């Protein structure tokens, strides 16, 4: 019986398909009160007065608080990744007290008997603001005469990493390409808006929250609020998507905990979509200046990266770490002699940025994959050929890159060859030539993106070297129940990834029990007491391995008990299909029978405990490095600027696969999100710092009608850094698809003098790029 590798349908589905869900906003507690937050309408202002007296008089209103009322107890929202010695981490009060620094920052709150009364009462609060100048543009923010976001200035940190002799690489280089790319700000827009519910028995607090990180959150809340960690339980019930946006310690979570403590009553807050667009941390936000030096045959000599990274108004949980996750990735899958990465974190009067699907790696991959196409164009080489001349060859693994990472395994040739074949590359190039010859108003563009990423976050030692505030291990426990059923407790915290199904497959194989006999418990710090949660494509490659190792420990305990009961040596037992069999005899017992024997404990080996239960904490020795080649064909209407994706082929190598159905689903969703960045999505702030995309009517998410069917396939080069051989898949599609689509658009329009279209490549922007090319 082999479960791993099987396209098992998900155990999670039935509940979700019949509405028996436990979204945080579905939950009720007796006597529960409702919280609404008043948010700043200004990007930057001094608060000169808050009058809550009228709001307090309204029917159903239990309490109203302004920042001043909680100033002594609210603490400062944490930043767990001080990336450099010079970093400035400003105070970040959950509720603004003296100054607001982005539109949507909380300035007051109402607690009322229902959510409608709470919302109504917000309108009765009077706040006096003294406007201060907004800081919007990254480049001008660093000029000495710029208004300041914080008294310390607008630079959060500055980092430079060099490797090899960059001057030598650029000196006399036959080709130097110099480009600037903008990574626009994105709104993660998980379909479930955030919600928080906190209750107390006067002693301990229980928080239900729509989070990816119940374990990290508990530790951080204890540190921020002073509620002792052992008196705080955090539960992530059903969580409707995250994509990094729920990897955060939020103002709303801290304030709901304080309100519950102050009032002694359960309180719930449920976010509106507009609140989410305003005040969920945003993704990306980089100005990228990239220089690449190459020989005339296309061989890369050196790469210089100079980034301005938009931090927004404050540093949140891993805000400064996001660009640093790209610091060793701009070189991509390529060999080169020299590399330099420089990055300044810049404060602006906008919502803070933080992790969003891929976090740092999509930004890096975009820059290198865009500039590789520019190199190909400069040398009149096929974009695949120029990549081929530079990438690490499969026989060169393990390979230590110019940026210092050791890629353990990969086969870029195999993935690319398979992708080219599925795509019909030559035929599409012929059609492109034909359309160009005919002067067809609809031009065809072909875009390629090859990529790798460091994921499976992460080896604790390496995280420590990078100044990250925590480790990257993961924990699992396996409980053998008396009837032989199995409870797997995991420290990962799924929100759509299907861990219940995949972890069941791993445990079923490792223990030799039926898939149906395994259940997986997660997302409650009282039940799953140790965990590092779910982000960074880490769950399977770290958490899944912990499950495997815990099962192996169960098996070894069971082997000793079996030997004792069957009166043989443990070495005389073969284990297959869940049964220990004495070699050369019919004498056997199953692991499920042994669970009952351990429970009864009537006849155990000397000194043995009455349980087979085991746990394991896995800490990988290296990151994992999935890779892939994505190809897309787009039709660009040169008269209207409209872009239509005609076909999309993705060949990913995510190592060994536990559930191919789930892996394919992750790739599909990732591709769609990356296409969203390329074509549709942007968090737009005006010059005053107002968010113009505060609803889903203004912030465009791709719909079914905007996307084609994706053709996906895989190559399989096992990871060597973990016993499952898995590499992680959550972020791959997002990383690859954005540059593939933009490369395709530029490829279509290059004969028209276009060499870049800024994202999102809306019809207007494509049309303007064409106009610029014609000029």
């Amino acid at each position: 019986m082999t479960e791993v590798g099987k396209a098992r349908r998900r155990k999670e589905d039935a509940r979700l398909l019949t509405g028996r869900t436990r979204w945080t906003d579905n939950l009720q507690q007796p006597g529960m009160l409702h919280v609404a937050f008043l948010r700043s309408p200004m990007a930057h202002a001094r608060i000169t007065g808050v009058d809550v007296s009228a709001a307090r008089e309204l029917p159903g209103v239990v309490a109203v608080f302004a920042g001043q009322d909680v100033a002594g107890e609210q603490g400062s929202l944490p930043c767990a990744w001080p990336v450099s010695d010079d970093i400035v981490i400003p105070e970040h009060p959950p509720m603004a007290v003296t100054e607001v620094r982005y539109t949507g920052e909380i300035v007051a709150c109402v607690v009322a008997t229902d959510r409608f009364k709470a919302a109504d009462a917000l309108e009765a609060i009077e706040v006096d603001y003294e406007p201060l100048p907004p800081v919007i543009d990254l480049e001008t923010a660093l000029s000495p005469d710029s208004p300041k976001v914080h008294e310390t200035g607008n630079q959060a940190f500055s980092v430079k990493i060099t490797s090899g002799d960059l001057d030598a690489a650029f000196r006399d280089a036959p080709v130097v390409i110099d480009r600037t790319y903008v990574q626009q700000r994105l709104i993660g827009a998980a379909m479930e808006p955030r919600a928080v519910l906190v209750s107390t028995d006067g002693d301990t607090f229980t928080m239900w929250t729509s989070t990816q990180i119940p374990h990290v959150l508990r530790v951080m809340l204890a540190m921020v609020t002073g509620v002792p960690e052992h008196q705080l339980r955090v539960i992530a019930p059903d969580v409707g998507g995250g994509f990094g946006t729920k990897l955060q310690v939020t103002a709303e979570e801290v304030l709901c905990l304080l309100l519950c403590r102050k009032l002694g009553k359960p309180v719930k807050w449920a976010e509106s979509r507009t609140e989410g667009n305003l005040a969920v941390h945003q993704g990306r936000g980089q100005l990228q200046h990239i220089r690449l030096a190459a020989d005339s045959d296309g061989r890369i000599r050196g790469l210089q990266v100079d980034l301005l990274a938009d931090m927004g108004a404050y540093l949140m949980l891993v805000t400064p770490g996001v660009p640093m996750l790209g610091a060793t990735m701009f070189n991509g899958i390529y060999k080169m002699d020299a590399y330099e990465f420089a990055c300044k974190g810049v404060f602006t009067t906008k919502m803070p940025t933080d992790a969003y699907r891929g976090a740092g790696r999509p930004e890096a991959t975009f820059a290198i994959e865009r500039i590789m196409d520019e190199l190909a164009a400069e040398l009149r080489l096929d974009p695949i050929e120029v990549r081929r001349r530079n990438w690490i060859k499969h026989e060169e693994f393990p390979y230590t890159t110019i940026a210092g990472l050791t890629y353990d395994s990969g086969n870029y040739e195999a993935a690319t060859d398979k992708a080219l074949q599925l795509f019909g590359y030559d035929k599409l190039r012929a059609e492109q030539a034909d359309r160009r010859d005919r002067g067809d108003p609809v031009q065809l563009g072909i875009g390629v993106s090859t990529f790798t990423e460091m994921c499976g976050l992460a080896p604790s030692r390496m995280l420590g070297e990078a100044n990250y505030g925590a480790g990257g291990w993961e924990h699992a426990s396996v409980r053998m129940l008396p009837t032989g059923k199995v409870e797997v407790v995991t420290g990962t915290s799924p929100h759509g990834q299907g861990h219940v199904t995949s972890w069941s497959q791993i445990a079923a194989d490792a223990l030799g029990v039926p898939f149906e006999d395994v259940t997986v418990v997660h997302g409650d710090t009282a039940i799953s007491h140790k965990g590092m949660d779910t982000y960074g494509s880490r769950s399977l490659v770290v958490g899944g391995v912990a499950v495997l190792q815990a099962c192996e420990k169960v098996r070894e305990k069971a082997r000793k008990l079996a030997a004792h009961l069957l009166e043989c040596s443990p070495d005389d037992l073969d284990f297959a299909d869940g049964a220990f069999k004495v070699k050369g005899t019919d004498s056997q017992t199953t692991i499920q029978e042994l669970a009952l024997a351990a429970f009864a404990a009537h006849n155990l080996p000397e000194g043995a405990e009455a349980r087979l239960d085991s746990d394991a904490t896995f800490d990988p020795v290296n990151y994992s490095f999935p890779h892939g080649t994505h190809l897309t064909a787009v039709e660009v209407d040169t008269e209207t600027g409209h872009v239509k994706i005609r076909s999309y082929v993705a060949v990913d190598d995510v190592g060994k696969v536990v559930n191919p159905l789930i892996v394919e689903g992750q790739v599909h969703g990732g591709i769609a999100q990356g296409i969203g960045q390329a074509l549709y999505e942007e968090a737009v702030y005006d010059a005053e710092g107002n968010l113009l995309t505060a609803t889903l009517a203004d912030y465009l998410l791709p719909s079914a009608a905007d996307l084609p069917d994706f053709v996906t396939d895989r190559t399989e080069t096992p990871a060597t850094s973990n016993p499952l051989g898995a590499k992680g898949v959550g972020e791959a599609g997002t990383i690859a698809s954005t540059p593939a689509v933009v490369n395709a658009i530029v490829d279509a329009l290059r004969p028209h003098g276009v060499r870049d279209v800024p994202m999102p490549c809306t019809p207007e922007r494509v049309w303007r790029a064409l106009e610029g090319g014609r000029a």
Partner: protein
Amino acid sequence: MPRISVKVDGIAYEEDVEPRLLLVHLLRERLGKTGTPAGCDTSNCGACTVMLDGKTVKSCSVLAVQADGSDIVTIEGLAANGSLHPMQRAFHEEHALQCGFCTPGMVMAAIDLVRDTPDPSEEAIREGLEGNLCRCTGYCNIVRAVKRGAQEMGQAVKSS
């Protein structure tokens, strides 16, 4: 306060409601029908889609008073006698859901689509589900599920 009568998933309710109360809040806050989620407030995402007298509506865009006298079916009322609706089954088989938050609305919209177009093309499915957003799946498997669900719904009609 106006008093309304509605039937939801086969059960009759009489409720006094504020005129401004939305149908989605009637379902979720008053009747405990939390299977229907609210995702966006602006009728863009479609997560709150339910059947009102046999046609889909986004329940965030209908006032509770407008639903007076109507028969409403939510995702909670689809499975009959413990057996999933063919469209629910198809979503499971094709792995057409990940986090599951858009799923109630997506399934309701898909059933309505197939009732109007019993054998929809891929294009018809994509166009027909344009008002229902999913952030997880990239829609590929949703399209596959709706095709499968349409076939099974067609067979169910033939055999009945």
